């Protein structure tokens, strides 16, 4: 089962990938209405990172670009800024994805926290968000919440993918 999971083809889990992106967009849209949204990481980015590490034969730039554009429309930011940020982070992930895959889930969560810090920093520079004192704190501790979200996300998606390919 492990070999099959390592050599996973995108065509084997295409619908799972699409469905997971839709769920991630749904969650991000829900979070926009909540006051605590600054503490929650963007699920679309987490999904993008996860899938770009799983399917080794693809670059995932198209999905990064499209998801970025959708987030630009969702957050009412200049078109292309989220797309650019997603592509940069996907590019870095592509360079290190073999190493990333060799880590345990908790180690991966730590790496993802660094990616999210890069995301927050780029967002801070590009969007110059208006933040009050407590919101500043929330904004910069958001990447640490990946330590909670990433294991849940990675383990559940791994389980689903394995179920799918063993069918």
């Amino acid at each position, binding site marked *: 089962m492990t070999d099959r999971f390592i050599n996973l083809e995108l065509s084997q889990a295409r619908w799972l990938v699409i469905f997971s992106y839709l769920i991630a967009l*749904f969650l991000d849209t829900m979070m926009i209405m909540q006051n605590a949204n600054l503490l929650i990481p963007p699920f679309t980015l987490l999904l993008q990172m996860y899938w770009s590490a799983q399917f080794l034969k693809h670059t995932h730039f198209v999905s990064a670009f499209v998801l970025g554009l959708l987030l630009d429309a969702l*957050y009412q930011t200049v078109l292309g800024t989220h797309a650019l940020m997603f592509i940069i982070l996907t590019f870095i992930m592509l360079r290190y994805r073999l190493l990333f895959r060799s880590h345990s889930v908790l180690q991966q969560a730590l790496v993802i926290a660094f990616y999210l810090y890069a995301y927050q920093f780029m967002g801070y520079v590009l*969007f110059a968000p208006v933040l009050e004192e407590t919101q500043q704190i929330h*904004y910069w501790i958001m990447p640490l919440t990946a330590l909670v979200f990433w294991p849940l996300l990675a383990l559940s998606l791994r389980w689903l993918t394995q179920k799918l390919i063993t069918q």
Partner: protein
Amino acid sequence: MAADYYGQLMGSVRSALLTTLSPIEQAATFPKQVYDLVTTDFTSMDELKLENQKLKTEILLLKAKTQQLANMELEIQRLEGLLGTTGKMNDRKVQIATVNFFSSNPLSQFLTLNKGQLDEVKAGQVVIDEQGIMGQIIHTTPTTSRLLLITDPDHQIPVRIQRTGQRGILNGTGYDSLSLQFIPQNSSVEIGDLLESSGLGEIFPAGYPVARVTKINKQEEEPYLEIIATPVAQLRQAHKVLIISPYDAEKKP
């Protein structure tokens, strides 16, 4: 990015993206709607909802007219003095819309309304609630439209102080505050002064309440006062709003 930032040339692309997101936005509000429904008393719910809806609509229309009437007296005094050189109050066509979705994100302040291109809503139209101006429509999809709130950091609205007629520009600063710009040090401004739309720029109709002055800072080295105001419209609570017809539509016979 440059095309969108400098020229708004990507309007159709953004509309297409918003149309794609529209069902997701609607689905995302579903859990909140269910929660609201569950936490509401179910006694004669249907009857009460219908009656409430009807009354709310009537109240909204009446309050919108009252806003105009309350300002009319002061407006007439000014017009008498200026022999009709300032903007005049007219009856405008309005559409009632419901707020579908809102953003509490620090990047932008907007609402999504349930009226779109099919209802002839266009970018640039002004939206008010029963208290005052909320903002303007910036993007439309066939069934929804996006309303940029006056508190958004990218939003500016020309206003005047109702008591004195002093004109200025009201900038959004994010969340629930605004900053009144270009008011000279020697101007008469007091905390509690009502700021109303001046009608300059012909986007916002003149005479609608916008904000109330809450803080005034005077710094000797600066030529202008630093004035903070809070919007009078219920930006966070409004459920039903009015979309006002633009100037061009009004001028046609």
